[in-house]
């Protein structure tokens, strides 16, 4: 897939709780094809402490409206600046970057998409494409508490949604790996979220002989395989999360699980 540098126009900036926001962008021409799991590199202008671009997962692509969604957590100066974007602002992005989740071999596969915190972002787009292809994906979404849950209604359009919160304020109390849904038969898991959560999910998958793909989020400079900063250790040595990932089969990763 050819990568490009595009000046995108902000069409909406929707706050989601105190810490997250949903940015919608559009472009005057047809957006290039983007795959679930891919990301964009956002250039954040007019933020003095921000030097590098900010890598953000593709949350959703609305083909009808020619719209790209990014779900963003306020972490530092770069993402805080992004939270101030207004409709009509022009933002430069490199896209689409990275590989993608792989589609299941059969539409009958029982698929579980497990997300935590802002890591739910790529699972919405993945879920929408799975649904389009005739699958019935299930979503297991975790957060610290009810106010950390986002886009639940969006997820419900594409499949059944199960929830865990650490404080029990919504769904089942505990971690995603403790949810009762995991007692049922599952063929494949797609996961994105904090590393300890993904490692716990990978451990569960390994112990139960389930295929598992995880989307990683390492610190990166370029985003397209030039700087070699964002590597993760794999069975075949260091691999770039930006260009050889961000999605890896968890068996390939050198995680202590």
């Amino acid at each position, binding site marked *: 897939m*050819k990568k490009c*540098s595009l000046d995108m126009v902000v069409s909406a900036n929707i706050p989601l709780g105190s810490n997250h926001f949903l940015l919608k962008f559009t472009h005057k021409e047809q957006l290039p094809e983007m795959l679930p799991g891919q990301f964009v590199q956002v250039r954040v202008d007019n933020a003095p*402490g921000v*030097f590098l671009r900010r890598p953000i997962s593709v949350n959703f692509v609305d083909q009808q409206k020619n719209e790209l969604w990014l779900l963003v957590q306020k972490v530092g100066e770069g993402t805080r600046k992004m939270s101030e974007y207004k409709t009509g602002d022009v933002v430069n992005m490199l896209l689409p970057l990275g590989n993608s989740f792989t589609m299941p071999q059969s539409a009958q596969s029982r698929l579980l998409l497990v997300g935590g915190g802002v890591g739910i972002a790529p699972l919405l787009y993945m879920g929408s494409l799975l649904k389009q292809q005739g699958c019935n994906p299930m979503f297991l979404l975790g957060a610290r508490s009810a106010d950390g849950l986002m886009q639940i209604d969006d997820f419900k359009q594409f499949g059944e949604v199960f929830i865990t919160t650490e404080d029990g304020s919504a769904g089942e109390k505990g971690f995603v790996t403790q949810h009762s849904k995991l007692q049922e038969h599952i063929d494949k898991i797609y996961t994105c979220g904090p590393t300890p959560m993904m490692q716990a999910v990978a451990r569960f998958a390994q112990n139960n002989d389930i295929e598992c793909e995880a989307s990683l989020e390492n*610190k990166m*400079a*370029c985003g397209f395989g*030039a700087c070699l*900063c964002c*590597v993760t250790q794999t069975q075949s040595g260091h691999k770039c999360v930006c260009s050889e990932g961000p999605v890896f089969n968890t068996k390939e990763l050198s995680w202590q699980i």
Partner: protein
Amino acid sequence: MADLKIRIGELEFKNPVTTASGTFGFGEEYTDFMDLDRIGGIFTKGTTIRHREGNAYPRMAETPSGMLNAVGLQNKGVDYFISSIYPRIKDYDTNIMVNVSGSTIEDYVATAEKVNELDKIPAIELNISCPNVKQGGMTFGVSCAGAAEVVRAVRKAYSKTLIVKLSPNVTDIASIAQAVEEEGADSVSLINTLLGMAIDAETRKPYLSTITGGLSGPCVKPVALRMVWQVAKAVKIPVIGLGGIMNTADAIEFFLAGATAIQIGTANFIDPAISVKVVEGINEYLDRHGCSSIYDIIGALEA
């Protein structure tokens, strides 16, 4: 339209804009964003005699107006370069120069000898200044005797244009430039990254797995300009300037300080087409200043 052609040793460049080693992969990473044929040259990722895994993650930290890296010369080795990468990149219409790195004189020589056999590689850049590897060359690059010794050995083994990349982590960079000129280097490129570090105050931990790393970006530009200016006055061979060049104006400053060519490094990460834009910008600057050749501004600092 001014004449942008320059010469380094025996080698002609269509324009003086090249891309810095370690920031541009082997060129292929950028072909979606720009036409490689429009720039003067590409310095490849540092290549060593054997495969290197590089340092552990994390290897990068953003810093005020720049970044630290500690990649540690991750590469698949010169034989892999020759068998797998070279065939894919050799026909680009630009000068492709291999950055040769090592830890011992024997490794440098062996790597240079292998690259010497490649028809479409007209020059090497000898990296005696990597700060991220134990004996990653910087041990050679920080003394006149060490720099001279490795250049002398490589010069005997390598017949084409030999560029030596200098470390800024020294007390007198001009004397090191003179030492490598004496041993037959055709050019020097400077500066490599400045040794630095970054700490997370909350966790009391360093951001990099290696604790220290190489600083690059606009924050190093004043140091780089000063060193290019000092070295250009001290040697007769052409100087290739780099360090924090983000746009045309930065590039012009390096020419005025005495650089014959420039390398664009960290800026490629932020705008992957920046090198082509700088070529256009230099052209426009020369026209606006009534210059017919890039040589009109090289070393033209009015001080």
